[in-house]
């Protein structure tokens, strides 16, 4: 009877996956071809790809437009410093612990902020981030308002030499980012991913098809808190210093991340990656302009939002029908003689 099966892959996604595999091998070998500066820049790019992809999952798919994700970046950073300095945990273990702890904290945060609808939810998440920032500046064991550096002894103990430590941090950033992206792709290809895509396209229709919209949104919020905090911990392991203002900065961890996602394409997995590349090219080219650069980023994001709301990748995907990763579902009709049993 069921003479068809569901396929994700298309010709463009097969080429896309092959290209991504090659890129990943080149990036994994970066310590052998890149200098210290290049490695740092690449690691920073990875963290922004991860943050933007997580925000994209939250806002682009689940419709939860948060302007308070800096709450989880900062939380992850502070958990790292607390675990390392106060509890004596190894920094890499601390990054892994930061995720689940942040997820537990995300549960009551979601319970509170979900009482606000739409745009008010956005500002509610911002208030939570402000509360976290103000609490962090009251913790004197972690430097209070002026912040704290990771003690040199701990940094030195991480690896036998500075070069090895930098390689380790680079690979950690690459592995963590790839793991985040893989988890997001796996989620979107799953049953829940189909529900999320339905919510993205039309929330009311999704609800009437029997999807428990609130529950899925809740799960996505907690999961992005988990991932964002781990990336936050990684970011501050690379910076080696934390303060409430840098950890909970709305500009660095939310404004940039939103601009990246909007410019690349909201609601598409490829969008944040394209957006991050554009963002860093612009930053390298215009960094001397200081605050004018930020002003231009704001203007570019507004222009893209109004005249190309699907972002750069949206323009490409609509024009050529491309997808870089096998996410969309296609029905493939099987030949008559095969009794197709796959669903």
């Amino acid at each position, binding site marked *: 009877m069921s003479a068809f099966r569901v396929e994700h892959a298309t010709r463009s996604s097969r080429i896309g996956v092959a290209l991504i595999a090659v890129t990943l091998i080149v990036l994994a070998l970066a310590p052998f071809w890149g200098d210290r500066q290049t490695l740092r820049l690449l690691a920073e790019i990875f963290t922004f790809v991860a943050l933007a992809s997580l925000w994209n999952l939250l806002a682009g798919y689940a419709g939860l437009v948060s302007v308070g994700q800096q709450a989880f970046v900062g939380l992850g950073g502070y958990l790292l410093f607390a675990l390392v300095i106060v509890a004596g945990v190894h920094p890499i273990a601390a990054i892994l612990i930061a995720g689940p702890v942040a997820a537990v904290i995300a549960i009551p945060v979601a319970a509170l902020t979900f009482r606000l609808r739409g745009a008010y939810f956005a500002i509610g998440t911002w208030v939570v981030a402000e509360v976290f920032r103000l609490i962090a*500046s009251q913790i004197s064991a972690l430097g209070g308002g002026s912040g704290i550096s990771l003690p040199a002894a701990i940094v030195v103990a991480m690896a036998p030499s500075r070069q090895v430590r930098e390689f380790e941090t680079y690979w950690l950033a690459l592995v963590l980012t790839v793991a985040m992206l893989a988890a997001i792709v796996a989620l979107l290809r799953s049953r829940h991913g189909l529900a999320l895509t339905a919510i993205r396209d039309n929330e009311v229709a999704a609800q009437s098809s029997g999807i428990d919209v609130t529950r899925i949104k809740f799960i996505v919020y907690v999961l992005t808190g988990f991932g964002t905090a781990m990336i936050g911990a990684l970011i501050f392991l690379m910076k080696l210093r934390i303060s409430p203002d840098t950890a909970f900065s709305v500009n660095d961890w939310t404004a940039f991340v939103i601009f990246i996602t909007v410019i690349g394409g909201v609601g598409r997995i490829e969008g944040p990656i394209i957006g991050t590349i554009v963002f860093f090219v612009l930053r390298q080219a215009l960094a001397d302009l200081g605050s004018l650069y*930020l002003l231009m980023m704001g203007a570019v994001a507004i222009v893209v*939002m*109004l005249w190309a709301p699907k972002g750069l990748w949206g323009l490409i995907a609509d024009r050529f029908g491309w997808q870089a990763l096998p996410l969309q579902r296609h029905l493939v009709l099987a030949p008559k003689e095969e009794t197709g049993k796959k669903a």
Partner: protein
Amino acid sequence: MTEWLNVILQGVLIGGLYAMFAAGLSLIFGVMRLVNIAHGDLIVLAAYVALMVTQTLGLDPLTSLLLVVPIMALIGYVLQRLLLNRTLGDDLLPPLLVTFGLSIIIQNGLLELFTADSRKLQAGPIEIQTFQVMQGVWVGALPLIQFVVAVAVIAGLQVLFYRTALGRAFRATSDDQSVAQLMGLDTRHVFAMAMALSLAVIAIAGVFLAVRANFDPAIGPARLIFGFEAVIIGGLGSMWGTLAGGVILGVSQAIGAQIDPGWQVLAGHIVFLVILAIRPQGLFPKVSG
């Protein structure tokens, strides 16, 4: 005892300022379901406009309102007509992202023009005038004027909403945009008028903010948050509710600051979160948002 009375009274008076932050926000949400993330930055913009007006024309801050209010209202009308009307629709993302972009543009534009230095508007001898209300309890003339103006602004908005043709247009568009359009209302113009009115209120709030304390280009987002908290505490869609919300927020912050200066803003946030937890519709709700 009188020490605490003083603290609470100061909190109430500052609450008037927060109510003005909130009224502008609540007004445009009511009419077009738009939450303006750049609201706080527009308040700061108004403060800088007032700074330029007072410096170039030698006016005192309160008189400068005669110019600052129409300038801001015009900015609001043009902003809505040219930019924000394009963002309205079923999708939540465009208005949020565009006003977020606007917020970054205003902050960095002001930083470029005026540097990060703190400024303040000088109001002259009135700044230090005080009255004794009762034994040991004092009220500053300026905070009192600010509170009276806030009450007048909110009463004025209430009258405008329920007694004038423009208010009728606002309410009609708020209830059902397409029917309002069928009845011959140009909703693009109605929305632009609402934004103009919101920015007129912002102008008054901005001038009082600038007289009361130092300001710099980065303080906008915190004003947005205070206004937002006052709206939610008071209840969506209720003008008098925003006044109550502003006063509750002001008093919470004043009490927090009295306990420990580091707790001023945090105390306000905590009261907001507690009210959100136990009474999410706010204290005096009118419309379900």
